[in-house]
């Protein structure tokens, strides 16, 4: 069993036999010796907060899917089913820990205060980077599978060199396990004791490929070969996810090097809005996982604690409506960038070749513009 006080040099992986969990599917609280030390503060107020977070990001996600269907967004990668993993992680870390994620972590972005316009702009195609990474301590989402793992390790090594105690987090899916980048990142992290958390949301599929194509043994076993301790956690149990993240963050912050958390979860929706999951998954499997819904599980637990579920629902609805209204408003208000902004920021200083192209572009665009009319030339209010 993994402890947090000594170097985990014997059993490097916990949760292999059964992913660690503390909430049963019926909402009953179960003891767990690994996670319990990180659950002291889990009172009704905290649980309610976690529930509301999950409800809001589910609503946000549904709304973004709807916006895509209405043609307002080019694409959207739904996170439905993975709320507990994302909220559990986000609510375990101080906001100064730096996140390097892929494209599906919009729940994390929301927790980090990323605004509606910032979140949607990339998916509407008006920008390549929706937000300021430094303002939110969250890198701009990565599309190249596993590339961000290296970035997180580099950030962590730099943090360490500066003698600071914040950590970096690399978020990725099960598919990333196959990329050289992730495996190389684990070598660097282990060799240099980098303060980095490898956070894998194993949602069972990489587009159409079941996780068995990427790993024939539990994913949490992979890091142990690099000497990185890992936890395999029920990714639909927000309480377990939060506790595991707290454990890992403390381990890493105390100077013991990297740690790996595998959240065993499921993507309930398509890979992205252009994917057709009926080609590769059956309804039966989907139904099994619908029953493991992270929101329902926590709700049943809150019910057992005597919380008012009616009030909880009302509050969830109020906050969700607020968030989705903001999304709807943001999407149409997103400005289309000026055509000439094509040429901005290619290099940090202008160079003559690009200046010439910009001039030519301007001339070409002007040559297409309709001839100004009489009124446009002479009219307009005198100022």
């Amino acid at each position, binding site marked *: 069993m993994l402890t947090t006080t000594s170097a985990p040099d014997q059993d490097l992986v916990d949760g292999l036999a059964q992913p660690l969990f503390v909430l049963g599917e019926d909402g009953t609280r179960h003891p767990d010796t690994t996670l319990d030390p990180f659950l002291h503060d889990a009172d009704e107020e905290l649980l309610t907060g976690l529930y509301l977070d999950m409800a809001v990001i589910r609503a946000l996600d549904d709304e973004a899917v709807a916006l895509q269907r209405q043609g307002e967004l*080019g694409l959207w990668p739904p996170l439905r089913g993975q709320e507990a993993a994302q909220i559990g992680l986000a609510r375990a870390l101080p906001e100064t820990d730096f996140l390097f994620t892929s494209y599906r972590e919009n729940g994390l972005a929301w927790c980090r205060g990323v605004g509606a316009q910032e979140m949607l702009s990339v998916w509407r195609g008006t*920008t390549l980077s929706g937000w300021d990474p430094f303002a939110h301590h969250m890198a701009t989402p990565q599309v190249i599978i596993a590339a961000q793992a290296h970035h997180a390790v580099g950030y962590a090594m730099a943090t360490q060199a500066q003698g600071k105690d914040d950590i970096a987090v690399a978020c990725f899916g099960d598919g990333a*396990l196959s990329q050289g980048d992730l495996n190389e990142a684990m070598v660097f992290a282990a060799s240099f004791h980098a303060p980095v958390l490898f956070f894998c949301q194993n949602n069972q599929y990489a587009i159409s490929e079941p996780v068995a194509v990427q790993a024939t043994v539990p994913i949490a076993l992979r890091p142990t070969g690099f000497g990185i301790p890992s936890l395999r956690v029920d990714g639909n149990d927000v309480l377990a996810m939060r506790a595991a993240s707290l454990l890992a963050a403390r381990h890493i912050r105390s100077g013991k090097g990297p740690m790996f958390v595998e959240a065993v979860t499921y993507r309930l929706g398509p890979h992205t809005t252009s994917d057709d999951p009926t080609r590769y998954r059956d309804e039966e499997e989907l139904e099994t996982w619908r029953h493991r819904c992270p929101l329902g599980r926590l709700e049943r637990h809150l019910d057992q604690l005597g919380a008012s579920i009616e009030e909880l629902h009302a509050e969830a609805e109020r906050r969700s409506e607020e968030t989705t209204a903001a999304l709807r408003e943001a999407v149409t208000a997103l400005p289309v960038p000026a055509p000439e902004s094509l040429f901005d920021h290619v290099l940090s200083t202008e160079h003559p070749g690009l200046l010439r192209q910009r001039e*030519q572009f301007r*001339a070409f665009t002007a*040559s297409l513009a309709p001839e100004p009319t009489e009124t446009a030339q002479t009219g307009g209010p005198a100022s």
Partner: protein
Amino acid sequence: MSTTMTMAAALNAALRDTLETDPDVLLIGEDIGTLGGVFRITDGLQNRFGAARVIDSPLAESGILGTCVGMAYRGMRPVAEIQFDGFVYPAFDQIVAQVSRLHYRTGGLVQMPVTIRLPYGGGIGAVEHHSESPEAYFAHTPGLRVVTVADPQDAYSTLRAAIECDDPVLVLEPKRRYWSKGEVDSSVTADLSSARVLRRGADATLVAYGPLVVTALEAAVAAEDDGIDLEVIDLRTLAPLDRDTVAASVRRTGHLVVAHEAPGNVSLSSEVITSAVEDCFDRLEAAPERVTGYDTPYPPAALEDHHLPGIDRILDAVDRTLGRRSSREVA
């Protein structure tokens, strides 16, 4: 004999017909099995030929190409699918340092009949890394053939020829043309070393390839209104380049315009124009022109129409090389 189909269906038919006739051919790539590929190019093939010949690979592009090298050592003819242009870079090392060199390095003892299929180019409103035109990186690599297709017939014949070829061939598939239809005759063959003259014309030679071939043909039709008679060449083989066909045309027209989506800096247009200058400088009546993507990273989708060469930009360049008034004088 010939049937109307989309370019996607033509590519699917080429793979099917090859798998049918050559037991050494196999397909490997991400999501190419049950899903049939994200563009459905391999639709139904795993069902028909089994998971050992249509292999859903782990999510690792370097792994896909490196594995193909080993398979080729053992006499197979693997056809790798890279899911999108922007994801070929993790495999760059295996392609340029391994696949393309083994024949040379072993003095011809080892053959690498590896076909790499790569959907490429913009114009579909995609997110970052899904609209790249990386052809110049690869065309620069000795030992590697680089071809690109423009219509369903060409797609069918060229892909079959690529798989039959004993050299490694990178086949660039213009994804924004996947859904355009045309006649396909499965008995038509293609060779991997010649450009195609698609339209005869007397005033200027317009060279394009891949997604811009359709645009170039449209530009030629539009130019007729201005009394300009354009010759249109589909370059098709980017490496090795068929410079003879281009030179023969330029000798007749005296004018050259090259169009492609990739940035112009150190690009195919650099090469085509340099070749023309070397081959027929004496017959050029004006400086050649090029119309390309700008020397910027591929922009967000909202701006891609400005970035991609369209009919107007092509005609503007035609005007310049013919000494007519263009946007650069108007401003």
